[in-house]
């Protein structure tokens, strides 16, 4: 496929702008020596180019997308239409407040609903992604301890099964990361936790259901242990889709949460963003929230705000989409969505567990983790090989090699928006590939064969980085 720069021909263009109707600008400042080599294309070629690119991109509507921990559910179209309303897209962020009352209502309503769903008291919509929400929540914890003069609380406890963003966010917030082992069932090891907490504990970060797809039955003991040591409990909402409307982080003992609107609340992932990662907290932390919150038709800053984690009010249009979703599925739809996400995952797990060893054979939540460790030992076929074979079968593979505590992991999250037939077809494909892997292990490393490119050489890419087009001069 040609690069846009390879399609470019000098002098080709489309006229979009009328002629200048005022005197020309006379620069009194240094100018660039040469024009930027941006592509020169007529609009027809621009359209063709990106249409080509779109054909080599796999979206949720191209097929089953059981990418664990990513919640690749259907992205409803009404959400997109609502976010594209000129009454939202045309608003300058610094307009007078009386001219943006509808936008403030969006912010106020969704904050109320998300607080109700999580059991929190206040929320900022400023964070633009999950990791950004984590960072924000941790800064709330930091500001809280600091405000009490409790400066020795410098450690954040993170289970070894956590997403990489958890320890990275904690480090960015200036905390030292204490990693604790999971027990044999994939849960937090309570004894290890008791030993880890102390007077320097700032808090604990936890995903529940956790990153192996299990709901930790000791959740109340866990939050109690941390609270008794004087720490706060942080809920990573990456997996909220399993329990929204079923159980609330606030009731489990969590003080701070972040949500991923682009996972749980059906907004599209856009090939990596934009997302939205609101950060919520209990009332005693609300005074530290960053940014401006909409309160009674006005934008207000918290009294001891940590500042801003992004400009303005966050990814507002993404928030509009999530609000549309909540209004559509409503009070009854929220738990029904969660229950069906969990049911679909358990259904697939039951249909696969005789062939694919489950890392933890336990009732799973919205996702489950399989380990290909035995297969790798006996046949030399890896989790990566299975994933690549799935590409040839036309479905997006599960998440590979995560969590790190499971060897040769494949993590499957079907979501609630898939039909039973889709699950059955995927199960059949997984089983067929397993059989092929046993019969012809030697060909598995050659997969995929039917995709636009074969396996890329990642070593070459990293050893000699080429990260921009080299123009022929």
């Amino acid at each position: 496929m040609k690069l846009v720069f390879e399609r470019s021909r000098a002098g080709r263009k489309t006229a979009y702008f009328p002629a200048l109707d005022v005197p020309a600008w006379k620069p009194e400042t240094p100018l660039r020596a040469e024009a930027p080599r941006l592509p020169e294309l007529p609009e027809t070629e621009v359209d063709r180019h990106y249409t080509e690119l779109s054909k080599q991109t796999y979206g949720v509507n191209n097929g089953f997308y059981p990418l664990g921990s990513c919640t690749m559910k259907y992205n409803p179209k009404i959400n997109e239409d609502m976010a594209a309303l000129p009454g939202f897209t045309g608003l300058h962020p610094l307009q007078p407040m009386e001219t943006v009352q509808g936008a403030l209502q969006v912010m106020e309503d969704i904050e109320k609903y998300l607080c109700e769903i999580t059991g929190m008291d206040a929320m900022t919509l400023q964070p633009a992604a999950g990791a950004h929400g984590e960072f924000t929540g941790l800064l709330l914890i930091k500001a809280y301890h600091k405000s009490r003069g409790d400066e020795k609380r410098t450690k954040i406890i993170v289970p070894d099964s956590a997403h990489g963003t958890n320890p990275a966010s904690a480090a960015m917030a200036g905390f030292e990361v204490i990693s604790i082992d999971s027990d044999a069932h994939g849960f937090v090891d309570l004894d290890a936790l008791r030993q880890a907490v102390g007077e320097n504990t700032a808090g604990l970060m936890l995903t529940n259901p956790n990153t192996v797809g299990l709901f930790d039955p000791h959740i109340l003991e866990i939050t109690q242990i941390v609270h008794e040591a004087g720490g706060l409990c942080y809920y990573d909402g990456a997996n909220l889709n399993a329990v929204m409307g079923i159980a609330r982080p606030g009731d489990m003992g969590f003080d701070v949460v972040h949500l991923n609107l682009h996972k749980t609340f059906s907004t599209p992932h856009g090939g990596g963003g934009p997302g939205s990662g609101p950060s919520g907290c209990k009332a005693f932390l609300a005074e530290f929230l960053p940014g401006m919150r909409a309160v009674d038709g006005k934008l207000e800053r918290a009294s001891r705000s940590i500042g801003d984690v992004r400009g303005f009010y966050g990814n507002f249009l993404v928030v509009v989409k999530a609000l549309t979703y909540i209004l559509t599925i409503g009070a009854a739809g929220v738990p029904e969505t969660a229950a069906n996400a969990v049911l679909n995952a358990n259904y697939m797990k039951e249909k696969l567990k005789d062939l694919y060893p489950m890392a933890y054979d336990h009732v799973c939540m919205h996702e489950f983790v399989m380990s290909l460790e035995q297969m790798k030992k006996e046949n030399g076929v890896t989790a990566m090989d299975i994933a690549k074979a799935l590409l040839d079968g036309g479905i997006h593979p599960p998440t590979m090699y995560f969590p790190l505590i499971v060897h040769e992991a494949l993590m499957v999250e079907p979501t609630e928006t898939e039909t039973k037939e889709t699950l059955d077809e995927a199960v059949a494909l997984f089983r067929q590939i397993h059989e092929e892997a046993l019969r012809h292990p030697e060909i598995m490393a050659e997969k995929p064969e039917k995709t636009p490119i074969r396996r890329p050489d990642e070593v070459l890419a990293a050893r000699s980085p080429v990260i921009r087009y080299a123009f022929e001069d």
Partner: protein
Amino acid sequence: MNFPKDLQYTRTHEWIRYQGDSAYIGITDYAQDQLGDLVFVNLPEEGDELMAGEPFADVESVKAVSDVNAPVTGVVEEVNEELADAPEAMNEDPYEAWFVKVGEISATVELMDAEAYEAFVAEEE
């Protein structure tokens, strides 16, 4: 797997070759084999102080990053800048692909000779 006799080894899979009052440091054949194709190395700067047993560099494969620990306490006299441009040398010839030359050596971690290290590696396998 190669275990040259003229080197000493650490339990964290670094080698050290003394030369006069100084020493060269790198990672072992076993280490590079375990790490897979190495794509980048983060090296210290001349004049940096190394602490025996503490990380002083790290090496990256495509999907992992690993610390490289200092076998000795000392001061960096020379850095193998070529390694940064050709990280594959660590895979191809690990005992020639030295990271740093260290002087003013004061302390060392527990070191093994080739035979002891070979046995140690066999146990790890």
